[in-house]
Structure formats: C-alpha cells, structure tokens
C-alpha cells in the first residue's frame, strides 16, 4: 500500500504547476453506457390513478397470454417480461389441484405448497440449465416464458375438473388423457419456440428435454388428480 502512495505521489508531482482552482474539485464518473431502461424517458407513473396502473398491467399480462396461445416468434414476451402472469397461473393451478379434503387419510392430491414449489424450483432449474448450456436469455426472462407457458395446462386442469364432475370412469379418463396430452405438448412447443431460439442451434435438444420433463410432471399431476367425493 505504501508503494502505491509513493508512486501516485510521484505521478502527481509533475502536475504541481498546473493551475487548478483549489475549490473546484474535479469530479465525475466514468460510466460505461449500459442499455438504460426506458423508464427514465417516459413520464412518471406515480401520479396516475390506480385503476390506470392496474389496467395497464392487466393488459400487458393479457397480451402475453395471447402470445402463448399463438406461439409465433415474437420478442414481446421476452422484451417486457413480468412475473404477474406466472404467479396468477401458478396459484390458480395449485388451488385447483388441492382437491383432497382434510379428513380423509388418503392424499387426494398434492398440497398447495408442493405444486407451488415444483413450478418455481422447476423453472429455476431449467433456467440455470439453459444458461449453463450457453443460452443468451436472462434469468427472469426465462422464468417469465416458462410461467406463461403453463397456461395450456391450467386450461386442461379446468377442463379435467369439469369432466370429473360427471360422467363414467373409463370414458372420462380417456378424455382427460387426450386433453392433458394435447395441452402438455402445446406448452412444450410454445416454450421451446421462445427458449430454443436463444441457444446455439445444435444444442436445442439439450434445452428442450428438461422443459419436456417439467411440463410432463405437471401434466402428470393434473391427470392423476382425483378429488375426494
């Protein structure tokens, strides 16, 4: 440390004859310009009524739902990522899967916490995996995509619930199997449409497999769900 001071004093010794006014310190920061978010340029959203804020967020969430239903290669989902949609879907799914009543000793279905943890930890692990494989997508963008693509499975859960309300056993199982399989493949396809683009081309299969497994587990939970009478 003393070495540093000495050398810096030696460096500054040559500047002693440069006239800088003593009470104007040279200040400033050397910033590497980062892609600043556009919030600075927009008007402040603090003064608008709450209804506007909520409606704007809901519109953004709804737009992303539409993107999931028709998975084209658009970057809207990635550019303005948000986690409201995934949270909504996750909570809805977990609530609907919580069918077993508290009295019966048999576990009618997974508990709320279990589904919640599976979805979020599964998403985190898939995101880490895709980043480790050399993906260019960021952590939260990936979470956003995976969360939004649970929507077909949530729809399938609603349909299964309705089917289970009535109808014979064997027939309803076939219907549920078809619905869950279709929605699970839709989810996988939709999420790979977004995720696989951010990977080197020969490694797409390596990223798709965990996504497939993730939605398969969720689909399996939906299919084997049986509400206690």
């Amino acid at each position, binding site marked *: 440390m003393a070495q540093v001071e000495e050398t810096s004093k030696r460096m500054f010794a040559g500047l002693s004859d440069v006239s800088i006014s003593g009470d104007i310190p040279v200040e400033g920061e050397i910033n590497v310009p980062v892609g600043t978010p556009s919030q600075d340029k927009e008007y402040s959203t603090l003064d608008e009524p709450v209804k506007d804020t909520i409606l704007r967020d809901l519109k953004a969430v709804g737009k992303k739902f539409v993107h999931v239903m028709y998975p084209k290669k658009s970057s809207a989902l990635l550019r303005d990522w948000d986690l409201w949609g995934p949270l909504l879907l996750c909570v809805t799914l977990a609530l609907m899967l919580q069918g077993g009543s508290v009295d019966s000793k048999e576990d009618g279905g*997974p508990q709320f916490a279990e589904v919640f943890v599976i979805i979020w930890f599964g998403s985190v692990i898939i995101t880490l995996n895709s980043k*480790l494989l050399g993906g260019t997508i960021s952590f939260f963008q990936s979470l956003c995509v995976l969360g939004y693509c649970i929507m077909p499975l949530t729809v399938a859960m609603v349909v299964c619930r309705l089917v289970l309300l009535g109808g014979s056993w064997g027939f309803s199982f076939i219907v549920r199997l078809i619905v869950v399989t279709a929605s699970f493949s839709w989810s996988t396809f939709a999420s790979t449409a977004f995720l696989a683009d951010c990977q080197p081309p020969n490694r797409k*299969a390596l990223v798709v497999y965990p996504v497939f497994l993730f939605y398969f587990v969720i689909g399996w939970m939906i299919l084997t769900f049986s509400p206690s009478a």
Partner: protein
Amino acid sequence: MASSDGNKNTNTEPWGGFEDNIIQGTGSAVIDMENMDDTSGSSFEDMGEMHQRMKEEEEVADEAEATEEETGEDGEFLGIKGIKGQLGRQVADEVWQAGKRQASKAFNLYANIDILRPYFDVEPMQVRNRLIESMIPIRMINFPQKIAGELYGPMMLVFTLVAILLHGMKTSGTVIREGTLMGTAIGTCFGYWLGVSSFIYFLAYLCNAQITMLQMLSLLGYGLFGHCVVLFVTYNVHFHSLFYILWLVVGGLSTLRMVAAVISRTVGQTPRLILCGTLAALHMLFLLYLHFAYHKIVEGILDTLEGPNMPPIQRVARDLPVVATAAMNAVNATVKTLVQHISIA
C-alpha cells in the same frame, strides 16, 4: 500475492502473467454488472481469475483514491477546508462504492455458476453415446479408463428418475405419512446420487484410487440410466420375474461398467475388492429398494386404511409366506410321524 500489489506488478507468474494494461484498459471506474454475464465460453479459470483481479484492483484503486482524497496534497482533511458539499458528496460516494462492492460480492454467487459452465459443455450426440456406453462394460482394467466429467447427463437422468418414481408412487397409491410425494422422490434420488458418490469418493480416497469427485458423480449419474429403464418398464408391467431378470441383466451391466471403471483406476487387490463390493452392493440394492418400497403398498399402512381395495400386485407378492407355511407344514408332518414312530416303538 496479486492483492497486495494492486495496480503495480502482478507479473508474479513465471510465464509473464496477465498484462496489467489489458485489465485496466477494459475496466471502468464503475463496475458494470452486465459484464459479469459473459457467455463467450472462454477458458473458465481465466475468466474467474480475471474477474477476481478486476474486482481486487477496483477495490484497491478505490481505497487508494479514498486515502488520497482524505490526506490531500498538503495533508489537510478536506472537510476542514470548508466546503460542506464536498464532504457530503465524498461520503455519499464512499457509501455508493461500499454498496457497489457489497453487491458485487453478492454477485460472486453468480460467478460461481460460471464455474459449473464447462461441465455442461456437451452435444446431444455425446450425451446419447454416453447413455449407451453406460450399459457396456469395458474389460480393460489394467489401464485407467477414461471417464467423462460432465454433469448435464447425470442431472437429467436424476430428474428423469424422479419423474418415473413419482409415476410409480402414484400408480401404486403409496401414502407418505410425513412429507410429500415429490419431496420424497427428489430426496431419494438426489440423496442417492450425491450421497453415494461422496461415499465412494471417500472410499476411493482411502483406497488410493485415481478418481475425482466430478468423475464419480458423472459415473454414478450415468449408472442411473439402467435404473430408469428398469423402473420405467416394471412400473407399467407388473411381473415380478420380469423385474428380477431386468434387475440382474440391466442393473448388472451398468454396475459392471461402473465397477470396471473404478477398478481400472485402483491398485492392489484389497482396495479393488473393497471399492468394487461397496459400489456393486449399493447400486444393485438401490434398484431393489426403488422397486419394492414405492411399488408395493406397505402392509402396515394398508391395514390402517381400508381393507377391500387391494391392488392385484398384493396377491403375487405372497411367495415367502407360502414357502414358510409349506415349510412349517412339512416340519409338522415329520415331527408327527417321528412321534408316532417313537410312541409305537
């Protein structure tokens, strides 16, 4: 050694070390967090070292600046010079730099993920080939066999095993009293993979085997491929004899592969025997455990729940008691005849 010198001479390596100019030229006064996210895939050790050195130089530069500003060129404390704003600004600056340093230390956690990055550097072809090779034992045990140090395949196999286990537990109606189905499945599979790898690595360390932890993790992970196949088949096709055949054949092949790889890296009869025996026993017994513990309903729980809903598998599993009662009957018969003979005689 690098931290004590700071800006100056970091050329402590015999090969010349990194050029300071390069590091200082590309750095900035404010650490840009975006630069931490380097996915260029360059040599991971160098990246880690460079990041560390950049941070250390940044910190030392900050401290040097701070001490300089404090002492000043004529040794007077700047605050005393009278400009209140300057002191406030300096304090704010210090707080900002300290906060930034804290944040970058927290982001070190992210840099740790970069350490794992090279272990995931695989192609789908390689994974497929390694999966197939995990079932083919190699007989060359006098020369160390090559073990791939990769973590993608093992992790995916462990997760697949978890999914298959879940399927098995659901179809057999296993009831877990304390805990959840998912938690049990994940705990079992990951516990086996990490725990047994560590244990065998420890044994290998005791027996002087040339195997690293990563290689052990990778080897055992790929050995789970056989388990996945067997369980997938037998959870859907309920024949006990089929399970035993598959257990011996598929389980045996993958165990032999692992054992041969480990033995080829050990010297001496006794160490080889110890390692081989332990690994084979644990691997085969794990498959047995997975099949029976989660596939068959445990009798105790069933008795307390409901009687009539017995799945068909219950009937097949009555081998042992039948044998036992048959043996008992045979013993009874012999004893009776003996007694009769003795009483007559």
